[in-house]
């Protein structure tokens, strides 16, 4: 994975999210989104260390993860717009984007839930003789969910090839991490004997390096690693905040967050003309993606409960 590739990914996520926010404002996306803006380096760096057959689980703030794992942006836009050509055929939306062909076991809207799902999937992969690993993304809020701590225990006990990636953006919705977390975030993982590191989540290269080491460790049978990636959410918890301003952080704090913009940090590593070329490439890709999504069919209400069951029985 080259410097340019990492830049392309963070830029793609940033511009995808900015366009998605526009689609929320224009009404093309209903229900709003949880923008990933500011946290792009984590998705880009982590997924750059993964193979195509490695698995991820994502969160309510998950667009970056699935884009970095390789989803087609047109199908992602279409999913956000609830179209039949979406990743989930319009049945999942922003908080449930999944692409099983790419190892994306779905974004999960229950905080902390996916950690144990990823642990089970990684354990199963090993039992099936596959060498793939699983990564589960979650935020600082999730470290107070008991179910996630139970997953740490199972993963450590059974040396499951899973990576726990905590994106500490400072807030669980509006609750500052200092008011919510007794002890430390990495201390939770260390208590289970899981190696845990705090890394700079604004720099894609650093995230890639730390993830590569953790993936190697997992693939060689040594078990899980915990990465706390310190980051900052530049935009709203959810786009509803664009309409209803909540006061839980100052403008000065947000400005200070922008001073460590992952897109700029990685962009500064490229020659000006190379960066401009990537930017143009991303715009062209997203122009085409948005156009495809906007032109896609809406699902037929008669099929509202299609896919409810995987087996073919007919229910009344």
């Amino acid at each position: 994975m080259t410097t340019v590739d990492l830049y392309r990914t963070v830029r793609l996520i940033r511009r995808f999210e900015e366009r998605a926010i526009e689609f929320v404002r224009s009404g093309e996306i209903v229900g709003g989104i949880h923008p990933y803006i500011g946290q792009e380096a984590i998705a880009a760096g982590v997924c750059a260390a993964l193979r195509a057959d490695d698995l991820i689980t994502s969160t309510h703030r998950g667009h970056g993860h699935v884009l970095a794992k390789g989803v087609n942006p047109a199908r992602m836009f279409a999913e956000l717009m609830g179209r039949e050509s979406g990743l989930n055929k319009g049945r999942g939306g922003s908080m449930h984007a999944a692409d099983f062909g790419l190892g994306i076991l779905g974004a999960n809207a229950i905080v902390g839930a996916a950690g144990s799902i990823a642990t089970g999937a990684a354990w199963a992969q090993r039992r099936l003789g596959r060498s793939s690993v699983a990564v589960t993304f979650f935020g600082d809020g999730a470290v107070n969910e008991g179910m996630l701590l139970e997953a740490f225990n199972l993963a450590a006990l059974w040396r499951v090839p899973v990576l726990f990636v905590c994106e500490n953006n400072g807030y669980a919705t509006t609750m500052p991490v200092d008011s919510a977390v007794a002890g430390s975030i990495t201390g939770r993982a260390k208590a289970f004997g899981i190696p845990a590191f705090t890394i700079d989540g604004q720099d894609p290269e650093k995230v890639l390096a730390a993830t590569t080491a953790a993936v190697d460790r997992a693939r060689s049978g040594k078990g899980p690693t915990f990465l706390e990636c310190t980051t900052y959410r530049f935009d709203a918890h959810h786009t509803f905040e664009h309409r209803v301003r909540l006061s839980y952080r100052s403008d000065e704090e947000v400005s200070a967050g922008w001073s460590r913009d992952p897109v700029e940090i990685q962009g500064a590593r490229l020659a000006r003309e190379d960066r401009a070329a990537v930017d143009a490439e991303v715009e062209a890709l997203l122009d085409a993606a948005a156009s495809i999504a906007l032109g896609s069919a809406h699902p037929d209400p008669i099929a509202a409960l299609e896919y409810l069951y995987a087996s073919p029985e007919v229910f009344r």
Partner: protein
Amino acid sequence: MPKLSYLKAMNRALGDELAADDRVFLLGEDIRVAASNLTAGLFTRFGPDRVLDTPLSEQAFTNFATGAALAGLRPVIEFQIPSLLFLVFEQIANQAHKFSLMSGGQCKVPVTYVVPGSGSRTGWAGQHSDHPYSLFAQVGVKTVVPSTPADAYGLLLSAIRDDDPVVVFAPAGALGFREDVDFSTLAPVPLGVGRVARAGTDVTVVALGHLVQDALAVADELAGEASIEVFDPRTVYPLDVEGLAASVARTRRLVVIDDSNRTSGFGAEVLAVAAERFDLVTPPRRVTRPDGAVLPFALALDRAVQPGRDDLVAAIRGVLEEK
């Protein structure tokens, strides 16, 4: 013919399916030593990767099973206590059950949840005596409550082979039930198909699990008064409405006995179906736990809260006498 107990039939189904399909594995608490006897002999036979003894982490290991299923395995979880299903309701109802639709049909979650000893176990009191099959039916999770050893075998096999999550309630009151079984006839029993446990012409009694034996006993007891048909739906959801309709078309009277609390329980659903579809000569009745019941400890109180034979006799006489 050899005798087969209900619990042994389930044990046999697990062993047969573990042997037949390498993707099947069991997980749960104390299953290595088979504390409930459900998994007796299976750890020795299949080893620790197929019979996975878990720490007391119900929420994580229930989601763990979902993850393993998404990756291609077919997990079977044993829950020692029926009330643990409240603890993992999120993991079953909000996670495992929703993946198929939410992903637009990209995946399947073939997990089986088995509760050997559901309902009252006599003397286990408030937090170990629930029977929450109606809850799972309400959210649309496939749910079975077998009544006989052969059905316990066959429904558990079908549950494991089904591509969706299935909850299997094995009532404490049925676990010791034994019947003569020709082992060569043991076979999968399809989900969603009921059976007539006893044919009759005057009234249909709908009963599930251990209550089928009570219904049959009552039918014998009242044989001089009325010809009672006992219909065992076997599956709570999806309910075999056609099978029930065929029975009620013969009897035109209906009583349901149900070990759920009264409001929004399985019995309420059967009566709702009857109101919508059946041509009854007298209003149907239900025999259930009371509204909002919590099972009290003392034996007489425990029994007082459960639907029993006396209540069933009274309900049957009620629908027979009313004009």
